[in-house]
């Protein structure tokens, strides 16, 4: 079988070493599939020439959907005809990336029949990426996906496939049901996910606590991060066990608290909870002894994105604390008000974060009908260029 592959001396180097080799994966797929063989050939060529061979994608897709397929053509179709089309399908993953082997096998079967047999498990937004097929195979693939209830994910100027950490499924720190919320929002916004109608993309990510294991604060337009607002739960015996077990509680825990709100007198750990910043560090270090409080919910933040065009952004706080209970109506109402304003006034290719930067947080808040509160800023303004909105006129006692 090996001689069926094109010669790939450079790629072969990447089959050495301990980390799983993507070259080996391609070869595994190539064994049964001509697409894989051409991909090996084209990639080897890229390695030799130090340049990619993919052209700007055209618009291809599946009937009734405005996104979810990334069109791709190579620039040497005569030499690599099996991948002259090589489109990617983004398939909405199940929340938390949990699978039964049965479901996975069905996906494999479909992709064996209709595509390259290559995937990304998963794409960096979270989708199952079915990597490489022809225009003709798109509809048939979707047809089969329907039967196993896997739907298409987002691409283009729409809601992108939401993702979440495993949360309450496996983590003791989850302050809300991330998987439940992720599923709920995904279902609620099917239309927005599948039919691009925004100025640009809009991503939701759900993390169960401030450790933020789906990097939502860096990578989503709306970041929903688990939070508690009462006292950290403490198990004194467990603290003693850690101390007896040799943990240097002063150095490892107390001195690393960014709020400087902990104290360890050698016997007892105290936390001045009203100063706690909810950073998670102490809980991370002593999972048996400390836990988030019982009054749990989430912090909602807005606006993260990669640098293009106005520079990278992190999300910033819009709601410091909200209870997370289905159907999450308050958050959805807020989201929709945000979309309305952004769709109305946002520029083409302007992410919501950039939009806020351009119009100013104060004006944005007014437009979405949210009161400004100090939790939204790291600190108040430093420059004195304040747009006071009213002034007194000589003739009246009232403000203008």
């Amino acid at each position, binding site marked *: 079988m090996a001689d069926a592959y094109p010669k790939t001396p450079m790629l072969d180097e990447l089959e050495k070493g301990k980390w799983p080799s993507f070259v080996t994966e391609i070869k595994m797929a190539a*064994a049964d599939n001509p697409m894989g063989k051409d991909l090996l050939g084209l990639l080897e060529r890229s390695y030799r020439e130090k340049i990619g061979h993919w052209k700007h994608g055209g618009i291809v897709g599946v009937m009734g959907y405005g996104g979810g397929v990334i069109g791709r053509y190579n620039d040497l179709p005569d030499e690599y005809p099996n991948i002259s089309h090589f489109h990617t399908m983004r398939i909405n993953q199940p929340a938390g990336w949990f699978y039964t082997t049965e479901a996975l096998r069905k996906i494999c079967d479909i992709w064996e029949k209709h595509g390259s047999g290559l995937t990304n498990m998963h794409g960096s937004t979270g989708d199952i990426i079915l990597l490489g097929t022809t225009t003709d195979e798109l509809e048939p693939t979707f047809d089969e996906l329907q039967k196993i209830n896997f739907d298409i994910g987002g691409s283009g100027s729409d809601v992108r496939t939401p993702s979440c950490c495993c949360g309450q499924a496996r983590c003791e720190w989850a302050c809300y049901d991330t998987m439940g919320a992720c599923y709920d929002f995904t279902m609620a916004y099917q239309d927005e996910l599948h039919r691009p109608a925004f100025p640009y993309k809009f991503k939701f990510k759900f993390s169960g606590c401030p450790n933020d294991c789906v990097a939502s604060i860096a990578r989503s337009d709306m970041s929903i991060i688990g939070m508690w607002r009462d006292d950290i739960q403490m198990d004194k015996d467990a603290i003693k066990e850690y101390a007896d077990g040799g943990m240097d509680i002063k150095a490892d825990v107390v001195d690393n608290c960014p709020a400087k709100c902990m104290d360890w007198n050698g016997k007892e750990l105290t936390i001045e909870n009203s100063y706690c910043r909810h950073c998670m560090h102490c809980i991370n270090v002593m999972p048996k002894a400390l836990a988030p409080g019982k009054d749990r919910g989430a912090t909602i933040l807005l606006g993260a994105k990669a640098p293009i065009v106005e520079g990278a952004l992190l999300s910033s706080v819009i709601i410091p604390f909200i209870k997370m209970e289905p159907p999450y109506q308050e958050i959805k109402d807020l989201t929709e008000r945000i979309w309305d304003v952004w769709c109305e006034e946002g520029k083409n290719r302007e992410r919501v974060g950039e939009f806020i930067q351009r119009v100013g947080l104060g004006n944005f808040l007014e437009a979405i009908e949210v009161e400004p509160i100090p939790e939204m800023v790291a600190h108040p303004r430093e420059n004195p260029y304040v747009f006071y909105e009213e002034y007194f006129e000589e003739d009246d006692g009232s403000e203008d």
Partner: protein
Amino acid sequence: MADAVHERRTDYGPPHHDQFLPPIIKENYGKWKYHEVLKPGVMVHVSHSGAKLFTVRAASGRLTSIQKIRMYCDLADKYCDGYLRFTSRHNVEFLMDKQENIEPLIADLKEMGHPIGGIGNSISAIVHTQGWIHCHSAATDASGVVKATMDELIEYFENMILPGKLRIALACCLNMCGAVHCSDIAILGIHRRPPKIMHDKVKKMCEIPNVSASCPTAAVRPATVDGFESVEIIEEQCMFCANCFTVCPAMPIADPLNDGISIWLGGKVSNARHEPMFSKLAIPFLPNNPPRWPEVTSAIKNIVELWAANANKYERMGEWIERIGWPKFFKMSGIEFQKEHVDDFKHAGLTYKRSTHITF
């Protein structure tokens, strides 16, 4: 068998996750009490009910064949009652309630070529993007650089011998699909030459006003060249972001002579201790040197080891550098400081050193 006349559905969404959760998770959903890392790549979560869930995390190259997925399925059927999951960094996790299955599973995984690790104070898989496998925008490959780098760092994946977590991400162009902007170490593909303009195609393929508008530095201007309505680029104003190319395919920017990789340091996402931080430029340019990018992998290894040897416990890369200061970091790492390091974008002034907090 595909039934040609079944009702065509849309917008039914992903399958509900409930059906994919192993019974122990369903029973203990939201009831986990604490976890312990048993050894590299293996942890146990203990429920308030007393139930114990064991997780084995195996490395994945992310680009996965259906053959490999089926092999995972075989293992999950054998040891985990047919359940498995993937992580937000694309590793594969096997979940089980039977502790005795851990060792045989690990043995099988290793046999298959999948190292176990990435949990705790270790380096996990590199979040990355398409590169020359699938994207038109790439300034470098993704999977190859990742593979070469992880081969070099494998001991830090398979062990927990670092001061804290270390997260690496790669993006093959400034679009940064890998969201590398907040990583302990970011590997970023970069162009360094202005787009070449196919003047005969611009007007046909692109909206000229959109193209001009796309450039963050206003370097792109409408112009008639060789009789074609097209655009021109003021080269000194171009910083190679490729945004014009994203908008207009007639302006290819990839260039084998000048494309390469830059290395960025000290970002983080979690709120643990320090607030989230952006990564900062450490090495402005390293050449694309396939198949194993030795300049890149050795630069990264040096940085990892410098951090490992000098950081305090729990101190992420960025926290460490913030404590000692960047001048010290440049001194210790031997990386040359250049004009490129000095910010000159919108908020540049805020990055100047506005104090006498200096080390010698």
